């Protein structure tokens, strides 16, 4: 291989690494700037409430329907596996723990990144492309305070609520299949679930996860929109990065959080 090709290749890798580090630094500064401007998002609560509506309320259908089906499948698969070991009556606790600890926050987070995260990125990216953000700046209105911070907090507040609703619908789906369809005893289903799931650590861990996922996905969504190249292609690429980056961030953070939470539980 000619030396010049090797040098060119190394240069490309080096440039890519420097760009990636620079972008991480910019994202960190952006996060600090969003936090700095956050008080305005709460002083003008109607702006944040509007974003909760767009990110949260409009995501309800996909979250609830997905939760219902995931719960129904979990009921069928769970009962089939548990029944082989004569533990079919434990379906309630199995479904409850799976949803509250893992599936609720993770699947709701993935759906949130696809539905709301992509919409936030596309909206901010298009505002940049059509010079609406520049116009706002020239009107002495900071887009970070007026546009970005309310969307960020709208996502952070919506995400745990959506995850909770996902889990509720999942449990309901498992109840429909397990109790109504298969015939698991109603009292056993709910009684086992009540006895086996604690508010601390099971439910609180699920809430912590969904809040962390909400922060990660919302930050990625607003950052990608704000940093998008102001072209149709640029907005399209930014939207894709939000969905891919948001989903990977959720899966990676889930592993890290689960490790810490599992260690915490083991020490109790």
């Amino acid at each position: 291989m000619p030396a010049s090709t090797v040098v060119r290749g190394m240069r490309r890798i080096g440039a890519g690494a420097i760009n990636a580090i620079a972008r991480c630094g910019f994202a960190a500064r952006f996060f600090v700037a969003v936090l700095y401007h956050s008080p305005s998002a709460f002083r003008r609560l109607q702006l944040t409430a509007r974003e909760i509506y767009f990110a949260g309320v409009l995501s309800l259908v996909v979250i609830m329907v997905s939760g219902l089906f995931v719960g129904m499948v979990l009921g069928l698969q769970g009962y089939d596996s548990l029944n082989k070991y004569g533990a079919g009556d434990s379906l309630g606790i199995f479904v409850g723990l799976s949803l509250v600890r893992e599936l609720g926050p993770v699947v709701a987070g993935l759906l949130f990144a696809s539905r709301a995260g992509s919409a936030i990125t596309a909206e901010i990216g298009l505002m940049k492309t059509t010079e609406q953000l520049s116009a706002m700046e020239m009107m002495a209105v900071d887009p970070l305070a007026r546009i970005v911070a309310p969307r960020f907090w709208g996502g952070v507040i919506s995400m745990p609520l959506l995850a909770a609703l996902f889990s509720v619908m999942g449990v309901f789906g498992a109840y429909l299949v397990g109790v109504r369809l298969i015939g698991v005893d109603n009292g056993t289903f709910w009684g086992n679930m009540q006895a086996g799931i604690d508010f601390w650590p099971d439910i609180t861990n699920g809430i912590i996860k969904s809040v962390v996922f909400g922060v990660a996905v919302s930050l990625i969504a607003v950052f990608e929109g704000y940093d998008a190249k102001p072209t149709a292609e640029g907005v399209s690429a930014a939207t894709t990065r939000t969905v891919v980056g948001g989903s990977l961030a959720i899966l990676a953070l889930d592993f890290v959080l689960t490790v810490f939470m599992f260690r915490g539980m083991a020490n109790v």
Partner: protein
Amino acid sequence: MNPNPPQPAAATAVAATNAIELADVTFGYNRRQPVLKGITMTIPRGKVVAIMGGSGCGKTTILRLIGGQLRQQSGTVRVGGQSVRDLSREALFALRRRIGMLFQFGALFTDMTVFENVAFPMREHTDLADPLIRDLVLMKLHAVGLRGAAQFKPSELSGGMARRVALARAVALDPMLVMYDEPFAGLDPISLGVVGQLIRKLNDALGITSVVVTHDVYESLKIVDYLYFVSAGRIIAQGTPDDVRNSTDPFVRQFVDGEPDGPVPFHYPARPYAEDLTAHAR
């Protein structure tokens, strides 16, 4: 026209009478390729001044430097006597409250109605009661002839109407200075004339200063008091509309007459044509 004439009469007046002063301004997005090279211009208060030149010559960059969205590498940009680069963020935002800007395609907020767009700066920067804001917005929209379109969404407007709404929004807070970025681009002849006349009338009626970045020579000559021609990041000619009409400067003539070739070449620099065509044979 002299490419480097003495400053116009208005420009030699005392600094206080100038709304904008640029002195030896150099700017580039990177150090190797400066976009502006030693730009010096003065824009007196109460005048309509056009900055003209081909696409990509740095006209819009000048507006962004005046508005503080970009910072020059050297030289000074003064607006209302204040050096823009030296302003704190708060002071810059205070200055921007006295500046209106009309973007090339209006930059109207697409999730708001026409009414809400014009009301936006008032709601953000004043504590005026809603009934008063309503009256003020209707007055601004009436001035641009679009009071009847107050409840339309920007997507329901034609290009010319959107530009007029953006104009109403730009003067919503009665600024001292309004900057227009390509206000005539993509407009039909009627809309073009309407927008041109509105720029002149609003300037005179409100006693503001207007800076118009454009490449529409004929429309500009009808409404402006003074013109600067920019090419490749430098001011290469300037004068009153009459100076421009009578100019023998080759660049000005090419621009005014719309000649495809001249000081601004038709062809982008490339190796000889024959060499390119026969390259594959070799």
